[in-house]
């Protein structure tokens, strides 16, 4: 069978486990590609340990040529924290979704940030719990329909969508690196990831990156509507960019 020419993939991309298991149109592979290229360019493949959470992020458990552990829902942060505390030579990456980071594992995220753990948390925000079939998440947009907000999310009773990077910026020390990227601006997302990794490799501090992502399967959107939801609705609520420590009047 003739094979089509393939786009170049990072060395850490484990070909034995491809094609990957994400849905067509999913944002995860884009984020993982940006992460893989960053690891490769920084030459840290031999000392990087990748941890993934429950949710769609667990589908990355055999994605890379990286030592990897798949943890319980919300608990990848403490697993990677513990690993790095025990062997600070390692570069630890905790990869999770918005439910894992902002709901069930929020105490771990908050405390890892305030302790300035030298690990990188990479959180993929697709506004809902995808693997369990599309329930409301802390990041679900107002009026957005999910399986547990069938009439649209009502902020009055369910709160407003969580602004994760803004929260982390507010509680983490200045030496932490915090950014929100989006899969619609992949080169920028990769720059953020790379900077985040550099921040932990140099021992400067914690790194937290939220990647706005796509979930056409649970959004029930076609290609055009998918990008529209990301670039209009999500970008409209979640500002993309680096979050510098505020230096106001002392």
């Amino acid at each position, binding site marked *: 069978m003739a094979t089509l020419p393939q786009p170049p993939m990072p060395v850490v991309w484990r070909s034995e486990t491809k094609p990957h298991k994400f849905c067509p149109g999913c944002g995860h592979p884009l984020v993982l590609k940006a992460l893989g290229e960053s690891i490769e360019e920084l030459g840290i493949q031999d000392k990087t340990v990748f941890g993934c959470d429950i949710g769609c992020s667990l589908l990355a458990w055999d994605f890379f040529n990286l030592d990897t*552990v798949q943890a319980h829902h919300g608990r990848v942060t403490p*697993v990677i924290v513990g690993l790095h505390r025990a062997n600070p030579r390692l570069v630890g990456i905790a990869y999770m979704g918005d439910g894992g980071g902002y709901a069930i594992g929020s105490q771990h995220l908050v405390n890892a940030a305030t302790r300035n753990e030298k690990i990188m948390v990479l959180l993929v925000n697709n506004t809902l719990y995808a693997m369990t079939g599309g329930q409301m998440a802390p990041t679900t947009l107002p009026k957005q329909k999910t399986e547990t907000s069938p009439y649209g999310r009502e902020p009055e009773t369910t709160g407003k969508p969580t602004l994760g990077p803004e929260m982390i910026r507010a509680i983490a020390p200045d030496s932490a690196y915090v950014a929100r990227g989006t899969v619609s601006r992949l080169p920028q997302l990769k720059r953020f990831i790379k900077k985040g990794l550099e921040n932990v490799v140099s021992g400067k501090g914690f790194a937290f990156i939220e990647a706005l992502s796509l979930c056409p399967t649970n959004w029930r959107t076609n290609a055009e509507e998918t990008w529209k939801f990301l670039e209009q609705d999500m970008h409209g609520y979640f500002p993309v960019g680096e979050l510098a420590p505020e230096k106001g009047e002392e």
Partner: protein
Amino acid sequence: MADKPIVGEKRAFMTGNEAVTWAALAAGAHIMYGYPITPQNEIMHYWTRMAPKYDRGFLQTEDELSAGFTCIGGVLAGKRAFTGTAGPGTILMQEPLSMAEMMRIPMVTVICQRGGPSTATVIYSQQETRLTCFGGNGEGYRLVYSTAGQQDLFDYTIKAFNVAWKYRFPTFILSDGYQSKMREPLTIYDPEERGIKMVETEPLLGGTGIPGVDRDPRHLRNTYNMEDELYQVVMDMDQEYKRIAPEVVEYKAMETEDAELVLVAHGIVSRATEGAVRVLREQGYRVGHFRPITLRPFPGEALKEAVAKARRVLVVESSMGQLAGMVKEELYDLSVPVTGYFRPGEGITAEEVVEQVRGR
């Protein structure tokens, strides 16, 4: 940096929690992860005082979930890592422990039992026996040592690190608030000088070489798609657990050869029941004593032997039959009746056991 924490052997006077700390230091434990809860706290207090002197690590986490999961991370990095907790903390700890069970993570956990259910009290109790042995959504593939005082706490804490890393099952020291706080003399020692060689650890993640280039990457998971796939994992684990069980089980049988009544107790309560047997023997009662030291795996064969001539078994415990349930399971095909003296959340003295026996 000081050299070894303990040189040679020394008679010392300390609390149970200190004994655990000194044992962990002597065993070469690299790092402790923990969250404050009574009656476990002095393990952390003493560990944080001593750890910097011997280049050991410590992390105080945000809760017991985190203490357990960071401990798993420490083991994945190849370190002798341990944690300790109690009561409601033991409940939260079941989540990381179930992951450790599934992934055969050799973490060491010290459980300082306290009264329950809920927050309750903080000293006398054996109400976390079942939770420690069978907690989590699994089959209880854990190695559990129930200690009965300072010397046990010291000896078995050292042993726990070795057994965990040799067999790769999560390993427990099941203590209680009374042992944590009581004071008595014990001998502390450097294990190597006693000929105890500490089992080498190895990184499960982040070892040498570039994954995918020099070696295959390590991909560790606890999620399975197919029932038959999981079935095989569990059955393999079960087989391995049963294979090692005879090497691991420990117990202490006393005066059981001709015993008409066999008292069964574990942990600190066995101190009272052993004392009662001595008194009762002097008074002419044919009473024996059986103490399982490992509760998982349970020394079932030895128990059957110990009760072979018994007309009655009396299980004595500071809980409402948690040990008795295990005993009954082991003895179900024997006709000997299993009775119980249960004091949930209360201490038990030798005198009251004597009274129980004589009253019958």
